[in-house]
């Protein structure tokens, strides 16, 4: 019920280490595996680019810890903590060029 994967991209689902996005530390990279399709806000965020398969970087958290800012290829979106809990992601290794352009952890 929480997966939006159709059979033809089953390669993404089934990865054992998929975790909720909210559990990753700031600054980490991950690939979206699935979103909870019952959430109107997540469906909207999906249209705005947060679709399964997208590689994203968790950038920052607002002063009250929510929302988070998430960098996608092409844009940066805000996502509330409670929505981030309903996005399953697969953690990725940090970008190869860990130079100063990479966001530092606050």
């Amino acid at each position, binding site marked *: 019920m929480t997966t939006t994967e159709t059979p033809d991209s089953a390669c993404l689902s089934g990865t054992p280490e998929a975790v909720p996005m909210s559990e990753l530390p700031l600054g980490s990279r991950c690939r979206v595996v699935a979103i909870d399709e019952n959430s109107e806000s997540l469906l909207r965020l999906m249209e705005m680019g947060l679709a399964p398969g997208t590689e994203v970087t968790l950038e920052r958290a*607002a002063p009250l810890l929510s929302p988070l800012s998430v960098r996608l290829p092409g844009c940066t979106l805000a996502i509330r903590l409670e929505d981030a809990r309903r996005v399953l992601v697969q953690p990725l290794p940090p970008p190869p060029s860990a130079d100063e352009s990479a966001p530092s952890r606050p």
Partner: protein
Amino acid sequence: MNFPLRIRETKRTACRRLVAIAGNPNAGKTTLFNALTGTRQKVGNYPGVTVERKSGQCDLPSGETIDVVDLPGCYSLAARSPEEQIAHDVLLGEMDGHPAPDLVIVVVDASNLQRNLFLTSQLRDLGIPLIVALNMMDIARERGSEVSTEKLADALGCRVIPMVARSGQGIKELLAAVEDMPCGCCTCGGVPRFIDCLPSALENPVQTLAEGLVQSGLADALTARGESLWLLVSSLEGDEAVKTPPAMAALARRVRGEFKLSSKQVRAIETSARYRYLKDLMFLAACTEQDLPHRLTDRLDHVLLHRLFGPVIFLALMALVFQSIFSWAAPVMNAIEAGVGLVAQGVDHLLPDGLFKEMVMQGAVAGVGNVLVFLPQILVLFLFIGLLEDVGYMARAAFLMDRLMARVGLDGRAFLPLLSSFACAIPGIMATRTIAGKKDRLVTILVAPLMSCSARLPVYTLVIGTVFAAETTVAGLFTVGGLVLMGMYVLSITVGITMAAIFKRTLLKSPPPPLLLELPTYKLPSLKSVTLNLYDRARLFILRAGTIILAATVILWGVLHVPLARLDHSRFEDARRQVAAKASISEPERGGALRAIAGEENAAVVENSLGGHLGKLLEPVIAPLGFDWKIGVGIIASFAAREVFVSGLAVVHGVDGADKTSPSLRETLRREKRAGTGEPLYTPLLGVALLVFFVLACQCMSTVAIVRRETGGWRWPLFMIGYMTALAWLGAFVVYQGGKLVGLG
């Protein structure tokens, strides 16, 4: 795979061609629209709904004139809000009185290509003739993204024009492309459309519905599949139901039931499948996107969204805005005042003495003057709002504020309408159209007039200047006046948020709205869009001033000066003669005494008028707040518009051409005595009670009118007047009686 050239039926072949501009929010749609139409644009409404319709004209190089219409910005055509529904209906010519556009320019942000192609591919699915305006090419290149215009054009099967709309680059090429497009034709070349290679989970439902639609004559074979997918993803039930012919909705519901799919499920499948399709399309078109952070944006955000510095900078910015409204606009205001003074003098010389001259001077000139003088403040505020928006800070403010707003139960998108309401509730209420949920929107509309709009400023300035030593410096930087003003803003925000929380939990209970916020890269503001916006605001305000407020001031003058009974002027004449006859007093004293008599006479005239009687009628109600009948007259007058309170008080007290900062009106007010006790009326306590009343009361005909239009009936505007008036009375009562209890005033 090539698809046949399709001929679209257009009913207006003889008329001007209609070109619609579609695209994501922030893709540069409005910039392009402004560049194409310049000042030849007009803003209206779509029939029956409250979504703004911006249209204009544009000349092509050949001399042909085309009509251009700016569609509401959206990420997807799946309809869950009036904006998306309208975008869909206009594009397909399903809106009454609005034929389908001959051509759609879809504005695509090249620096965020894949996401922007989402809408483009939906447009292709519906068989709409397209030209892609590939905007923000400079940013895309800067970021190191590779965008091949030719290959993209081949893949999409339509013209792709690279451009930078901000600097006007590519506009000429775009116009030439529009010129080249044969009338009423569309080529559907390029790679297969998404609708023609659906994933298995969607193929059967879409095909079943499409066949059903064609069989019952509800759609033609060419668009049936596109329409079917749109019907399946759009909400057909509940509050947000789209307006489709009932037969179509019934068919769609049946197909959904047959395949056991909800609209949300279809949307989830469609969205992720379409993004996979777009990934392939990007690959075919040799386009790549760089996942690198924008260096400057990253560094700025590091500070501006910092856990500690972020909110501090936000508050400091807001304080700066308020302080600048209060003090920076002053020189210009003084100049306008001087100008109005000259006009009043001219009228004094030109017109013969009498009732008409008094009406012109005290009603017309004073009224318009009071409004014009207040233009600089509006411009300063809108300059700030426009700059912050253009630079990209507004989204950060929403980001910082979201948790607080969400706790109240408001949409993150409610922040901007509410912030705009600090200038004027009318554009603010109009801006609530971007809020998707009907109830969320209504809550925002209901509290927007509580935000301290700039029309209250003249009242604040007058009252603060009268009862406080406003220029006294506090902590070197701020003044008493500035701090009291800040206090009024804090009060307005606190009450606004509280009322929103109450409405959201009781009267308009609904689940918390989603946060849909993009944090754009910071960029230098565009001078053109900021000035165009300022010009618009100024024009709107002056038009409003010239009509409603002028009319209100003149009517008020009539109400206050047309006597209900004959007034005996002889006792004032006697008093004057006595003063003139007194030899023992000095010249200034004599002048003072004569002024006092004139004031009393004027008070007697007003007291004897319709307005005076109304004020007196109101006195028992407002006496617990410490207000006398003259303030009551001002309050009655200010139901037309808040700023009329100032000219209202000036008329009641017989001060010619006075405005909120003029010493004469302030002096007159300070001299006012409370009837009975003879103590000064305008104490700081009364001032604060009056300020609180004005923060909370709904005194603006234009706001009521706009709420009626936006909510489609009298129910909500009347409710708004009721609850705000009750709040205002209660607030002023607590301040005045509480203050008296603890021994103030």
